């Protein structure tokens, strides 16, 4: 009976994706993409992956939308061409379509051919009590396959470095939002609750769907909405320390565990939960600031009137120094 729901969600996803791809104007494509992100989050839930659904709701329906809109605004300034030039030959689209078709056939075929193998789920469930957490996703990410997560966080960090290197001379985008009491109300409501919600997801990540990435994404959302409203901060938000603390703590944990137990990222017995929580906290903070940094590079603002002024405008001087 639930197949009706799944089928309708899948149909709407495909329709929205088609609209997003074939829409003539980029702004409409962006809007369709935001709705698409929300629907994909629902699809993840129907597929039984609530952790990914939370991350997708935070990033796909919130952050990516803001990022694309800010990038669109900047493209308007740069007067980039909206749609690409007409393709001169049919070879490239044809080959890509064939490749996608082959890939789809492969995936579908392997779905139908897969014997009743539950994958590694049984193995994970056996060793779950020893991992220090009771959420299998967190156990896999931060205990069984923690080296992969270390590399993923390193990749995220390198991405931030690369984008920062490219943005030495980015244009100042004029922010259009006026200081409005409703915006202040939204900020007063959303920001503290986001901080608490992120901390909550970080904490329950050990037993329920949640974890470092989801918490980082929500915190990044709070930072992004403050950036959009031109809040001045007491401390430098583009703080290099905050950006690298995730990777730093992870590497420190790797070295420390090597020294303690003789094997990299093999947590000492009965201490696993403490190590995992420490790494997750640092990673969440880092992810939040890295995502915020990725957003800021595309949307640097010169405000006319600040919405809520907290302290002296260090941000404006930083922007003036950079340009």
């Amino acid at each position, binding site marked *: 009976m639930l197949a009706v729901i799944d089928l309708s969600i899948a149909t709407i996803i495909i329709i929205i994706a088609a609209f997003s791809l074939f829409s003539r104007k980029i702004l409409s494509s962006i809007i369709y993409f935001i709705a698409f992100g929300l629907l994909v989050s629902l699809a993840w839930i129907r597929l039984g992956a609530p952790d990914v659904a939370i991350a997708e709701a935070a990033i796909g329906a919130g952050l990516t939308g803001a990022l694309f809109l800010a990038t669109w605004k900047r493209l308007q300034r740069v007067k980039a061409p909206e749609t690409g030039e007409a393709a001169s030959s049919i070879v490239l689209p044809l080959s890509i379509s064939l490749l996608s078709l082959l890939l789809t056939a492969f995936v579908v075929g392997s779905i139908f051919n897969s014997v009743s193998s539950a994958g590694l789920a049984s193995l994970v469930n056996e060793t779950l009590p020893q991992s220090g957490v009771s959420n299998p996703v967190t156990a896999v990410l931060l205990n069984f396959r923690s080296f992969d997560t270390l590399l993923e966080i390193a990749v995220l960090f390198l991405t931030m470095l690369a984008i920062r290197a490219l943005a030495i001379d980015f244009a100042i985008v004029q922010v259009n939002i006026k200081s409005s009491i*409703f915006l202040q109300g939204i900020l007063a*409501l959303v920001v503290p609750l986001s901080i608490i919600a992120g901390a909550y997801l970080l904490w329950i990540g050990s037993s329920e769907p949640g974890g470092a990435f989801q918490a980082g994404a929500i915190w990044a959302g709070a930072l992004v909405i403050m950036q959009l409203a031109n809040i001045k901060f007491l401390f430098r938000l583009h703080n290099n320390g905050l950006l690298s603390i995730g990777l730093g703590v992870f590497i420190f944990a790797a070295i420390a565990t090597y020294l303690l137990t003789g094997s990299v990222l093999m947590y000492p017995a009965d201490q696993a939960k403490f190590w995992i929580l420490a790494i997750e906290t640092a990673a969440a903070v880092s992810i939040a600031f890295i995502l915020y940094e990725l957003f800021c590079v595309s949307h640097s603002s010169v405000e006319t009137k600040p919405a809520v002024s907290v302290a002296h405008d260090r941000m404006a001087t930083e922007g003036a120094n950079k340009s």
Partner: protein
Amino acid sequence: MILDILTALLFGFGLFFFLAGSIGLLRFPDVISRLHALTKADNVGLACIALAVAINTENWMISLKLMLLWLLVLMISSLLSCLIAQRVPKPQANRLREEQC
């Protein structure tokens, strides 16, 4: 038994309000009126649905969480709709008001 009837009633009302909001979004002539239909109808629909789910939940803390979720959505969407309405250009809003007088 009463619980089932109440739940069915609440779900019915909630769905009615949600569909009314969506159809209002389709059929109203102006951005401001669409905003009006959307915010009011959707939030009442969400209240009915959240209440219907909350009264059937075993864990009372999750019921409380659902009610708080509805309050949060109510506050955020009213603030957002005021924010959007502030940005709709004035002549359009005034013209709609004049047309209806």
